[in-house]
Every structure is written in structure tokens, then in C-alpha cells.
């Protein structure tokens, strides 16, 4: 049952072979046993989850079930869920019990899914290793001395370790794809505007996008059917017809043109990652696809551009944490300004403070044009690189991350080297395109490698099929880490 797909679980539930209550209990028990070693969850509330499971069982008995009714999902702790702690990995929100549901949570509730708990994450989604969480580091289930990636590291570790059938994540610069790659699962960041940001705690609003993290492309497609869709409460939600993301899952890949950006296979890419990605490309050629050499010349600039724009937006978004309406307030202070300064100094961790300060600086008088506007101009050049590339190919492929999972602590004192680990994912957010990571083998140290698939705007259904066909031909996505204490 731990390895069952969402479709299989749905069939078991519909056929009364198992109840949602039993299924939820199974995963809660597993979380109880294995989470102490991984720290993938911030909040688990068996009573609430089991109450939802009972309601799902009633709905199934009444013959009113949807496909995902009764299936438990872990939710990244960036999503507000009513009466659940919604901490965003920060001391600032450590006691914040959300007074409302995020759109994504509402959609899962509407589908009759069970909330299995809230997963750990980098504080305010700022990080690539899940080491900046106020609630402690998350460990990679393949090797607990290594990072699971970030910022959706808790969701990634939970899915990889089979602590949940699937989970949600969010991706501002690679936060779904990079952890998916580092723990060997499948993750999709949809086109910007596809999934509503309502109730999703904001980091960089022009880049943030939620998506599914699961064990297969097919599972991701089923989750997208629940998560995506127009929502008037998000001003950048796109008014589009509802899509069935599973519609292309049986298309052959013959004639598919795969673009290989030379910049993604250049210096900085570890040899073992390159080898696994090359092997995946050979598999795609066997499936009838052809590869085309392309160039995304401004790739290198995406890191400086991102580390201007994302902190700028963050400094503005995080100004709301003032110790007045919600969140942490310092126990002792003098006047109002002192109260703000102490509450924010004590409530935010070092990485968040660094980014707020970078953002404050690039938006301040005298620097705005040189940094913020220059970065926005370069953002357009980066987006145009993709526009040009998609005239030559249907999808773009390359590595998701330059290396396999690094050691805990290896990069945490050096922000710049940490930032460079997002080199292949960031440009996709800047352009607003959809991107995926799919497991494609293992590196020298036995750690998973992810293949990145980037599509044109709204090409999710096609990309999911491109991943699905590969997963029909290979079994990398079914490999599971052996965990200590498992019995």
C-alpha cells in the first residue's frame, strides 16, 4: 500500500478494500515511527486527520466520492489551513493558527482528501537545503547526513520516505523541482498563474507558484486536476478553462523535439549527474524523440537577477510582520519603532533577514534603477531566450540540479554557494514557464538524480505525458530509500 499510486488507492477505497480511516492510520503510524529521524513534518494532528478520514468514508459510502476522496496528502506549511498551525517554517508564525483556508487547501477539502499534516520547509521558503527552518533541518531519507533540498524539503522527504502518498509544494526559484531531484520524486511547478496563491504565505509574488510533489507524473496530473483553476481572490490567477491534466497521458513520443541547452551541460555540472541525464536522453531517443542543441545564453545572469527581484518582493511582502495583527511580538520593547525592530529581529532567522536587507537596499532611493530595474530588464532577456528556444523544440531537458544532495551544513555558511545550486531552475520562474523534475537514476554515492523538463506556457499536460512515457519505460521513480528503524 505504501507504494500504491493515487489511482490504485482510489480504486481500493472505491471498492471498499480499505477505508480512508485505515489508510490515514497507516500513514500516521509510519510518520510516528520514521519522522523523528527525518523531521519532515512540523505539525501532525491525528485527531483532525482521522475526522476528515471518517467524513471521507461517509462520502464514499454515500456514493459521492471523487477520485481523490479519502486519500491523505501532506501539505507544505506555507498553506494556511483553518485551525491548523501554519508556520511557514518561521518563529514569526510559530503560534499562528490560520483563520482561513488557502485556495489549494479548499480544493483538496472539496475533493474529500485528508490533510495528513503540515510539512517542514525553509523559513518563508527561502533556502535550497531546508536548513533555515525554525523547526530544525529536514534530513534526506537516502542519507540522513545530507540535505533533502529546499524549500519544499519536508514534502519531498515525506513523499520519498512514503510517509504520505503525495504532497504539495511551492516553487519560487526551484523549491519544488530541486528537492524533488535530491530525494528522487516527481514534482511539477506549473505555469505562473495556474494555481491560486490565495492563502499561500507570500515570498516573491511574481514568482511563487504551487504544484504537486508525488511519486509519478500520473499522480502529479491527478493532483493538478484538483489544484489548478481560476480563483478571483488571487489577482494574478489566470482566467482559463478548466483542464484535464491527464488527457495526454497516452500519447506516443515519436517526433518529440527535445531541446538541450548547452549552458545546462557546461562547467559546474557534476559528472555523475551528467551521466544519469545522458542515459535518460538515450532512453527518450529510444522512445522516438529527437534531441536538438539549443542555447539559453542568459542562464548565468538568472542568479543575480533572481537575487535582486526575489528579495525585493520579499522585503515588501514581509513588511506585514510587524508584531501587531498576527505573528511574533518581542516580550520587551520601548516605543513603536523599537517594538517593530525587536519583534522582527527576534522573529526572523538569519537567511530571511539577509534577504529582507538585500531587498530593502535594491529598492532604496538611488539604487532602484541600477539594481531593481536593471534586473527586470534582464528578466525579459531571460524570458526571450526561452521564446526563441521553443521555436526549435517542444520541450527542454537538462539536469534539475548541478549535483546530488550535499551534506548538511556544507553550504549553510556560504549563501552565494548555496544560491548557485539553483542555476538550472531559477530562469524558469523568471520566465513564468512550467518545469518538472523526474527521477532519472543515481549518482556515484547512490543518491538520486533529477531530470528537468521545461515546457512552453500551459504545456503541463504534454510535459506530464513526456514524463509518464519515461516512467512507463523505466523504474527509477519506484526506487525507495531503506530507512533506519523500518521493520
Amino acid at each position, binding site marked *: 500500500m505504501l507504494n500504491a499510486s493515487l489511482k490504485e488507492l482510489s480504486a481500493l477505497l472505491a471498492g471498499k478494500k480499505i477505508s480512508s480511516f485505515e489508510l490515514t492510520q497507516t500513514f500516521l503510524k509510519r510518520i510516528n515511527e520514521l519522522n523523528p529521524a527525518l523531521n519532515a513534518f512540523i505539525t501532525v494532528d491525528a485527531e483532525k486527520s482521522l475526522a476528515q478520514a471518517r467524513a471521507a468514508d461517509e462520502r464514499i459510502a454515500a456514493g459521492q466520492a471523487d477520485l481523490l476522496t479519502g486519500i491523505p496528502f501532506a501539505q507544505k506549511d506555507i498553506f494556511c489551513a483553518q485551525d491548523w498551525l501554519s508556520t511557514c517554517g518561521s518563529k514569526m508564525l510559530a503560534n*499562528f493558527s490560520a*483563520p*482561513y483556508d488557502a485556495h489549494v487547501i479548499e480544493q483538496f477539502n472539496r475533493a474529500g482528501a485528508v490533510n495528513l499534516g503540515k510539512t517542514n520547509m525553509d523559513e518563508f521558503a527561502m533556502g535550497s537545503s531546508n536548513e533555515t527552518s525554525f523547526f530544525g533541518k529536514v534530513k534526506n531519507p537516502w542519507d540522513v547526513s545530507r540535505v533533502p533540498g529546499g524549500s519544499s524539503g519536508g514534502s519531498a522527504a515525506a513523499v520519498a520516505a512514503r510517509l504520505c502518498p503525495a504532497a504539495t509544494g511551492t516553487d519560487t526559484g526551484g523549491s519544488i523541482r530541486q528537492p524533488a531531484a535530491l530525494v528522487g520524486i516527481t514534482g511539477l511547478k506549473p505555469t*505562473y*498563474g495556474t494555481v491560486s496563491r490565495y492563502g499561500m504565505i507570500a515570498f516573491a509574488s*511574481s*514568482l511563487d507558484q504551487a504544484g504537486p510533489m508525488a511519486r509519478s507524473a500520473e499522480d502529479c496530473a491527478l493532483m493538478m486536476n484538483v489544484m489548478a483553476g481560476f480563483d*478571483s481572490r488571487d*489577482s*494574478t490567477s*489566470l482566467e482559463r478553462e478548466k483542464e484535464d491534466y491527464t488527457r495526454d497521458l497516452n500519447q506516443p513520443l515519436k517526433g518529440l523535439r527535445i531541446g538541450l541547452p548547452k549552458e545546462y551541460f557546461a562547467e559546474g555540472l557534476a559528472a555523475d549527474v551528467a551521466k544519469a541525464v545522458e542515459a535518460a536522453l538515450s532512453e527518450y531517443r529510444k522512445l522516438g524523440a529527437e534531441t536538438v542543441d539549443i542555447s539559453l545564453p542568459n542562464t*548565468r*545572469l538568472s*542568479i*543575480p*537577477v533572481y*537575487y*535582486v527581484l526575489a528579495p525585493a518582493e520579499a*522585503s515588501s511582502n514581509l513588511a506585514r510582520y*510587524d*508584531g*501587531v*495583527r*498576527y*505573528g*511574533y*511580538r518581542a516580550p520587551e520593547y*520601548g*516605543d*513603536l*519603532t*523599537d*517594538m*517593530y*525592530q525587536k519583534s*522582527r*529581529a527576534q522573529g526572523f532567522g538569519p537567511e530571511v*533577514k*539577509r534577504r*529582507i*536587507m*538585500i531587498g*530593502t*537596499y535594491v529598492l*532604496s532611493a538611488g539604487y532602484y534603477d541600477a539594481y531593481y530595474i*536593471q*534586473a*527586470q*530588464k*534582464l*528578466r*525579459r*532577456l531571460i*524570458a526571450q531566450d526561452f521564446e526563441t528556444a521553443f521555436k526549435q523544440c517542444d520541450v527542454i531537458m537538462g539536469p534539475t540540479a548541478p549535483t546530488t544532495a550535499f551534506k548538511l551544513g556544507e553550504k549553510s555558511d556560504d*549563501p*552565494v554557494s548555496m*544560491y548557485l545550486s539553483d542555476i538550472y531552475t531559477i530562469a524558469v520562474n*523568471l*520566465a*513564468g514557464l512550467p518545469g518538472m523534475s523526474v527521477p532519472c537514476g543515481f549518482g556515484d554515492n547512490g543518491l538520486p538524480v533529477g531530470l528537468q523538463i521545461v515546457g512552453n506556457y500551459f504545456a503541463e499536460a504534454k510535459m506530464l505525458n513526456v514524463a509518464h512515457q519515461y516512467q512507463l519505460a523505466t523504474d527509477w521513480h519506484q526506487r525507495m530509500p531503506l530507512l533506519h528503524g523500518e521493520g
Partner: protein
Amino acid sequence: MSLTLDDVKRIAHLARIEVGESEAQAYLAQLSSIFGLVEEMQAVDTSGIEPMAHAQDVVLRLREDVVSEPNRREACQAVAPQVEAGLYLVPKVIE
């Protein structure tokens, strides 16, 4: 561009984050290395390029001018650090 300790203190004040002397030193080193990375942007000639604020060219939607939210004052204030008689409490701002 090189950042000074005074710059760091000024930024911290603008961001309303209290920073002690030794902390400011640490931030100076970290922010300087990040700005070293950011400087790479300056080498590119971007004259004539329109800044891109957003991934999609969306126009801000307007809605009907009608009540759409119920009053949830109690639920919203339940998460506030200090509330009295339905009001948020802050240190005295007018002497």
C-alpha cells in the same frame, strides 16, 4: 560598489530589523559577497529593453462594488499578540 558598515545599519533600520554591532559586521561580509554576485548584471547593456515585472501580461481585474467578505473580526483578532475591546494594542505613539 562596496558596502560599508553604516550602509548595513541604515538598511537594517529601513527594514526595521534591530542589528547589534557584531551582527552588523557579519551582515556586511555576507551582503558584500551577495552584491559581488549581483554586480555581474551591470556588465550587460540593457538600453531599450522594457522591464519585465510579471510573467504574464495580466490586467488587474475589477469586481462589482458589493460586500463579498463576512465580518470575521473575532477570528482574525484571535491570532493578534495584544487586543483589547476589539482594538489592536501598540505602544503609545502620541504623547
